[in-house]
């Protein structure tokens, strides 16, 4: 991929800005009774759903941002708004200082979009044919195309797939080929909606490593949604959480842990079947002398925890680790309900 120095040249330049963006959808309502069907003919009942409500945030160029939230929170809607597929009901959107609505064509030459449940590949053609089609449609200069093709072929390990028909690829292979195709025009911003959906461990790892690499080395701004919070934490430096169409959290993952009480896991390994008791901690599991506790460091500071641990007899190993982000997010989601 053509190396960009955007983050060096414009370290604070804005990649994406949303100013008080609201998106309202209308849903048809109808009960199944005969009366309801008749009433629907005369005066259909509609319900307004606010997918986004006064959402505002700013993402700098070169950032890797996780965009998370429960089902129906407005993640995909945001992705569609950023890529010009939808118009906001109100508010302003700027992507690379362009309006997705008014400067769609110019923006699309600098933006890459990938929806995990869709493919841009030509179904009845080999992968390389789709790539060549993209080269013409995006008017990619030959040297850039060659350089990017070589890069994605190597990093995404798709050399063996180039001659294969898209319809014959496995899901993981298709996602890699789609990702490769998306990168051929050297996009400055990448929007990924559930890119790891349905991928196995190896395919997921390849994708995550690749995304981290192009963000780190080429300064590509990446915004990614996923339901897999562990993946998001591994990839992104910042997490924007959305709930009921509003930004509920914007910061790093450690900060997110803190708002749930700084939950921490303590794993104690004991000898001779000794069962330790840890004050203010909840025992999560106990098996073969390995006992896992959950403790809130906001209530029991680390000094106190160390003291409590030192007072325990029969403990031969101690491991203190952060609570899995999945659990933290689940707590956050529950608190929103």
């Amino acid at each position, binding site marked *: 991929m053509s190396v960009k120095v955007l983050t060096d040249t414009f370290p604070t330049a804005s990649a994406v800005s949303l100013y008080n963006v609201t998106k309202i959808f209308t849903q048809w309502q109808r009960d199944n009774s005969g009366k309801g069907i008749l009433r629907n003919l005369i005066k259909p009942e509609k319900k307004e759903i606010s997918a986004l409500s006064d959402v505002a945030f700013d993402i700098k160029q070169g950032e890797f941002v996780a965009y998370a939230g429960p089902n129906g929170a407005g993640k995909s*809607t945001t992705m569609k708004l950023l890529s010009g597929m939808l118009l906001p009901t109100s508010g302003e959107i700027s992507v690379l200082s362009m309006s997705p609505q008014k400067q769609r064509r110019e923006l699309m030459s600098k933006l890459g979009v990938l929806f995990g449940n869709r493919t841009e590949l030509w179904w009845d053609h080999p992968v390389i044919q789709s790539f060549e089609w993209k080269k013409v449609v*995006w008017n990619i200069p030959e040297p850039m195309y060659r350089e990017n093709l070589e890069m994605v072929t190597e990093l995404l390990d798709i050399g063996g797939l180039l001659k294969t028909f898209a319809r014959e690829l496995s899901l993981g292979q298709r996602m890699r080929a789609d990702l490769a195709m998306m990168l051929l025009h050297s996009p400055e911003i990448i929007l990924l909606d559930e890119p790891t959906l349905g991928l196995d461990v190896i395919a997921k790892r390849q994708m995550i490593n690749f995304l981290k690499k192009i963000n780190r080395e080429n300064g590509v701004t990446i915004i990614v949604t996923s339901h897999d919070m562990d993946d998001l934490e591994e990839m992104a430096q910042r997490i924007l959480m959305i709930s009921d169409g509003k930004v509920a959290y914007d910061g790093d993952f450690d900060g997110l842990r803190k708002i749930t009480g700084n939950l921490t896991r303590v794993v104690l390994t004991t000898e001779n079947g000794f069962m330790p008791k840890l004050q203010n901690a909840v025992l999560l599991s106990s098996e073969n002398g390995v006992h896992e506790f959950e403790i809130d460091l906001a209530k029991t500071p680390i000094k106190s925890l160390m003291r409590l641990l030192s007072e325990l007899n029969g403990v031969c190993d101690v491991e203190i680790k952060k609570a899995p982000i999945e659990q933290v997010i689940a707590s956050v989601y529950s608190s929103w309900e």
Partner: protein
Amino acid sequence: MVDKITFTRIIKLLAISAKMDLAWLLRDTKYALAGIIADIISNLSIVSGVFLISVRFGGIGGMSADEVLFMMAYSTLVTGIFIMFGSGNNIHISRIIGRGQLEHLFTQPLPLKVQLATCGFCPFTGGGNFAFGVILMINAVNRLGLRISLGWLLSLAAYLLITMAVIVARAYLVSSMAFYAPVAAEEISYTAIDGTWFMSTFPLSGMPLFVQIPLLTILPEGLMAWFPSLCLLGRPPLGLSAVYPMLYAIILSLIAGYIFRKGLNYYVSKGSNRYVPYGFRR
């Protein structure tokens, strides 16, 4: 900077579609040939049926058998162009709209018009009817003893363009319903065009006015082959001017453009509540 849409760029876009079409033909030759032959047989059976009736009865409604053959040749050329440029659901656009697939087009750095005009070009697998149309036209012209000039050839090209404009405008007009009712109207373009295609090959000469006039206005089947053929033969029917098809095409295109844009605005405002993962590409 957005790259300019030049003539060269359009040719390149058509060329990549043609290249992919050729690749498909050479890769799945058996299936491709089967498809091409089926298309040709289907169209020829329609036009030859009408032609055989005209031979049996010494013409239809004041048109000689050779004039009917000329009209059939024109109709075959129209079918050929339709298949050659519209094989990617880009003319039957209600399918793309109804399946929530317009978003695939929005992510391309090209105007929608350019994408739609170039993405369905398949001269190799879709050119069979056009080639047969040319052969039939040469044959009909010879039998009629027409003197072919450059002006006449340009008129033929212009009428073909006008007929295509009417077809596309009608398809886009009815397809606009799919913006509002994606499931119910997904196939509406196919129903509207192919459902009445057979009528477009029937010579309307000699038919009563209450049949002819609706077929030149409400349902423009008379403009698909009958009216333009008689104009090219130098005798526009019903005392109408030879520019009537052009006026009709312009008015219909303006209406269709307006309605389609309204639908498109609705689509990007409301979003599509449906997405089907198949069939947006060949």
